[in-house]
């Protein structure tokens, strides 16, 4: 802790001088100045009529003993009380890392029921720290980060992973900032350096044009957000047991309030980051009805509907569907690009998909350069035919529409 004078606010009124029992405040160039006599007694704080004096929490310059930190932690995010699938992927990755380090794997769950905590154990967690406090039901950065910071300070894990989802990417940075440790965003691969026990955090940068390996060698925990759908889930074992540890938020304060959660589109069509199959459409659809056709195919294959920016700009579909540099980054098992030219800003959001199927009239369209399978032709001929064939294959008549 130390006391700070905000010289922008200070008017030089000298009110504070007499409040200081240690003669630590002097006037320099018409402004109050706190000198080295300050004992951080805080007596001056209330003396200032301008509110120019404040206390600053200073991180103690602790000699960092990284050996003290043990264990791998996974933040299991929930939405509407259900653990998000990215949490199970993190447990898969976390298990592998914990095995290599011969240490424990723990999960942290806020705002869901004990049965969800139990699921985390079946998916590989040894311990689950969990809180059912209603303050965690809806995602709110301040309570989430405050309790997570408290838990990490207390238990000192060496690795902390969270999903690179809107939730994880919003509040985990606060946690890392407060703990004075490094955070690597949106990792696509995690390895252990056997010699140093350091976590090698691999992630794309510059719009996917390069990959970088990031280390956090001298601080702990090593923190990373991990891109959904790139890590493999671990083994589910119904009989697996573990420890469930209820935790309570202590002295949590919040200045933000989540008033309402509004769903814009049904989950099946929009949850792009978790979908196995994505059917995306671009300007080549020609009109908003085109998306109806894509929805039909998506319904049949159990996929979600994505789009290029051009289609969003045309107003044919909402922004939440946009894939690409200024939209979502996705990597499903199969990505259909229908009537999308393949601009680099679109490619960076989808090129790590396992299989890319491009349907485009123009054989020269750059999308074919990244496509696993390309079909040159009119999507309005191809997709209906494709739908028909799938239905035939599944023995569904025309009436059995998906």
């Amino acid at each position, binding site marked *: 802790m130390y006391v700070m004078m*905000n010289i*922008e606010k200070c008017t030089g009124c000298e009110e504070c001088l007499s409040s200081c029992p240690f003669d630590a405040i002097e006037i320099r160039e018409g402004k109050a100045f706190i000198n080295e006599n300050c004992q951080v007694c805080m007596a001056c704080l209330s003396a200032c009529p301008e509110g120019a004096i404040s206390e600053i929490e200073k991180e103690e310059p602790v000699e960092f003993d990284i050996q003290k930190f043990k264990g791998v932690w996974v933040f299991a995010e929930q939405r509407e009380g259900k653990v998000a699938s990215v949490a199970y992927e993190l447990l898969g990755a976390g298990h592998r890392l914990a095995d290599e380090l011969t240490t424990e794997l723990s999960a942290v769950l806020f705002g869901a029921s004990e049965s969800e905590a139990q699921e985390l154990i079946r998916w590989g967690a040894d311990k689950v720290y969990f809180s059912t406090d209603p303050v965690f039901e809806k*995602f*709110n*950065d301040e309570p989430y*980060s405050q309790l997570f910071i408290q838990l990490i300070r207390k238990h000192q894990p060496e690795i902390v992973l969270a999903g690179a*989802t809107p939730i994880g990417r*919003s*509040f985990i*940075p606060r946690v*890392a*900032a407060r703990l*004075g*440790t*490094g*955070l690597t*965003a*949106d990792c696509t691969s995690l390895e252990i350096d056997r010699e140093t026990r350091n976590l090698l955090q691999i992630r794309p*940068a*510059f*719009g*996917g*044009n*390069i*990959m*970088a*390996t*990031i*280390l*956090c*060698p*001298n*601080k702990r925990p090593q923190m990373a957000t991990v891109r959904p759908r790139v890590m493999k889930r671990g083994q589910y074992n119904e009989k697996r047991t573990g420890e469930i540890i209820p935790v309570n938020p202590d002295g949590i304060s919040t*200045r933000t309030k*989540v*008033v309402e*959660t*509004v*769903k*814009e589109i049904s*989950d099946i069509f*929009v*949850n792009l980051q978790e979908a196995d199959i994505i059917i995306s459409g671009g300007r080549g659809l020609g009109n908003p009805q085109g998306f109806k056709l894509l929805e039909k195919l998506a319904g049949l*294959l159990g996929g979600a509907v994505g789009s290029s920016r051009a289609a969003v700009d045309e107003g044919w579909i909402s922004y*939440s569907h946009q894939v690409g540099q*200024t939209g979502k980054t996705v990597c499903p098992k*199969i990505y259909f690009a229908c009537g999308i030219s393949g601009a*680099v800003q679109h490619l960076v959001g989808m090129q790590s998909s396992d*299989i890319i*199927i491009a349907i485009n009239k123009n054989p020269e369209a750059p999308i*074919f350069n*990244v496509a696993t*399978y*390309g*079909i040159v*032709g009119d999507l309005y*001929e*191809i997709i209906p*035919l494709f739908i028909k064939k*799938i239905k035939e294959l599944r023995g569904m008549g025309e009436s059995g529409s998906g």
Partner: protein
Amino acid sequence: MNIVVCIKQVPDTAEVKINPETNTLIREGVPSIINPFDMHAIEAALQIKEKVGGKVTVITMGPPQAETALRDALSMGADDAVLLTDRAFAGSDTWATSYTLSKAAEKLGADIIICGKQAIDGDTAQVGPEMAEFLDIPHISYIRKIEDIRADYIRVQRLMESGYDIVESTIPVLLTVVKELNEPRLPSLKGKMAAKKAVIKKWTSSDIGADEDKIGLKGSPTQVKNIFAPEAKTGRKMLEGTLEEQIDALIQELRQLKCM
């Protein structure tokens, strides 16, 4: 209302290439732009000022050349600009960057700080929330609409996975914005003239009272070990035959790969 916008000058990513022999970035000849998300942050700040009054200050931490980004922002209508530039800032990761920017925001007495959702060079999206924690103020990410703003209160829509949340906060607050929020204005002629003549403040680490152990390379917990080119995608296959044959072949392939 004292509004501070954090902007970053970034290479236009579409053009960034990696030299496959040395595994380093080829930056020569790559144009620099204001990070696209930050354009929306500037626009948001100008609109807030128009609504409730106040002052818009743009800040950036970067090399001396980053001054051009600040002048561009001034030409759009920002009132003031600060360039945080110091050798000691070099090599900052997101932690050190956020610390440095937060010291500057503190010195400016910011009521509202606006950042882009992420910078397109690193795509980390960490600097905004980290700054808020350093300043001990709340933040709201991915703002797509500002519903209401008053001297000490703001209500916004926060974009989430399958819709949006309505979130309220006290002020001071830090916001990160997505492009859906607004359409950045073009610079006016008057703005361009003013920007040309404007004096841009240059602050070093001692000007913002930064702790030397927390800035630049020294203050950065993370290190880049190496960079490399992404694996090239294999197996591009143009299907052949009539459309019907192509579709049959595709279904065949997908079934073989157990994807259907």
